[in-house]
């Protein structure tokens, strides 16, 4: 479970250019929810996602992952938290270019010290689910954009984190590939039971999300379940 209490975030604080990116956000996300942060560009959805993902700091308020307050953790502890509890999917895939698909998928698992047997079983399972099991030996630059994003999703979910944070994962994909990716992520959400948080203004994601949180100018303006 993720809890946010009175979270505030500023950019260019105490500067004429100051932006109040997140204004007093209070929010709880239950385990297994398929949640979308929605809103126009600059509304603060990516900032909120990065704050929950312990990637970015906040200026005031508290963020809890279960009972752990993540805002007060050291940089090393935040890195450890990201490694063990979270999976990330970025807009531009960000795969490691010199590693094969298989090695990219297993990258987090290796960092976490899974055994070779666990890794090979899990890679096969996830890659089959995401229909990239016939691409395992290829390098990322030998794949299409949609396939690369599926590898990125596979990397994020392979080590079974509690939360998947996906920032505009369909932004670089055509509608067909976006639909395929969303279907697969919904399947993963059901099968693996992990919470998935999206930041996107893609209607396709909105249609598939079980909960939508609307943001406008850093303020949470609506929160509804479907």
């Amino acid at each position, binding site marked *: 479970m993720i809890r946010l209490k009175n979270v505030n975030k500023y950019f260019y604080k105490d500067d004429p250019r100051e932006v109040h990116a997140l204004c007093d956000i209070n929010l709880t996300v239950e385990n297994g929810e398929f949640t979308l942060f929605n809103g126009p560009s600059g509304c603060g959805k*990516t900032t909120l996602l*990065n704050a929950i993902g312990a*990637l*970015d700091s906040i200026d005031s308020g508290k963020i809890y992952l279960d009972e752990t307050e993540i805002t007060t953790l050291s940089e*090393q502890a935040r*890195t*450890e938290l*990201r*490694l*063990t509890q*979270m*999976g*990330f999917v*970025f*807009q*531009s895939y*960000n795969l*490691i*270019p*010199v*590693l094969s698909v298989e*090695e990219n998928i297993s*990258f*987090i698992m*290796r*960092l976490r*010290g899974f055994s070779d047997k666990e890794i090979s079983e899990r890679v096969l399972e996830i890659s089959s689910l995401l229909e990239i099991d016939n691409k395992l030996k290829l390098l990322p630059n030998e794949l299409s954009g949609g396939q690369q994003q599926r590898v990125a999703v596979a*990397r*994020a979910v392979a080590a079974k984190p509690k939360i998947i944070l996906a*920032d505009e994962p369909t932004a670089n994909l055509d509608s067909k590939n976006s639909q395929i990716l969303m279907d697969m992520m919904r399947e993963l959400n059901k099968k693996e039971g992990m919470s998935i948080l999206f930041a996107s203004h893609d209607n396709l994601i909105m249609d598939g999300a079980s909960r939508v949180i609307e943001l406008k100018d850093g303020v949470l303006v609506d929160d509804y379940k479907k």
Partner: protein
Amino acid sequence: MYKLILKMAWKNTFTRPARTLLVITMIAVSMSMMLAIQGLYDGMVKNMIDKNKRSDSGDISLYAKDYRVQKDIKYIIKNAVKIKEDIEKLDGVKAVVLRLNADGLLSTARKSSFASVHGIDLQEEEKFGSFSEFLKDKVNGKAREDALGLGKMSLAKRGAVIGIELAKTLKVRIGSKLIFSTQDSFGEIKSIALKVRGIVQTTNILLDSNAIFVDITLLHNFLGTSPLDATQIAIMSENEKLVNVLKSKYSNLDVKSFLELQPMIKQIQAMMVIFNSITFFIVMSVVFIGIFGVVYVSVLDRIREFGIVLGIGMQYKYIRAQIFLESIIVGLIGYLGGAVLGIIFLVYLRDYGLDLSSFSDALEMWGYEAVITGTIKISYFTTTFGAIITASVLSVLIPLRKIKKINPIDVIKAQI
């Protein structure tokens, strides 16, 4: 995990193969040149030391007290034959020779020069320092038809072998007759007629320009000294502690090690160490800058990749290990290339040498041979290995600092 890190390091090293191979070639070539120069420097000094030891002092020499200052026949080692026999029984002694030396005047019918006559036993000298190898079968670059060749020389019938520079000064050649005059042990001025049987070049400046070698028995008779005595006992030994043993055992004599007798060679050795160190420093700077350039540019190229992997939870220690490995891979391959090239150069220099005959006069004047041969030491390779690994490690410190400063969120925000 480290297996994967090694794989990433290897692949990243050759992401831009031309750039990496250029640096590897630069390291290999500069390292091999450095090894060749080191081998040549050491070879020059080794040759000089070797010839000085063989032709004159050995590893240790014993003289009567004050002989080296006064150079007078009255300062002679009594019962030198007995001392020689005793020394030969000591551990690590390879060869011992007795010599009888006297300064005087050497003359032809038209010219004369100061000279130092050395009474030697040719067979003993052959065992001691392969004396016949100093015989010069060429003078001024021209082969001598009258040269006797190695091992054919004899000092019988008042035969003498003369230093090459002294021969040039007196304008004598093999077969020429000479008169040597000096004061004998009774204080009388005496002369002896000698016939040149050979010309030697030892590259020991003092011997080449002043020495004339005759049979020791002839010289004893001429000077009126006892055949049991000598002015010098020279010893070849591998036992480094022997000099101290002899100093305490023969406290009535002047016992000197090679470097005590040849302080200039000690200075030349020190100078060569400085030359080698300067060369070493220059080459290691090249290695450092080369690897630094490759790693730094590679890190700048991959700032985004590092930011992302830090973002998804990769610990800094793994990135640090990866960068160290990339640098060490470049250094190590450069080292291996340099070692192979270096061995080829060094073996060539050891077997064929570097022919500097055009500068032979100047070189020989300073005690070097015209053909400089190199030496090969394991230490060249071990020291260079250590230095290249150190340079590789040091060269990544600044790139690592750059990575340490990466804030993953800045990289992630910058994504398109």
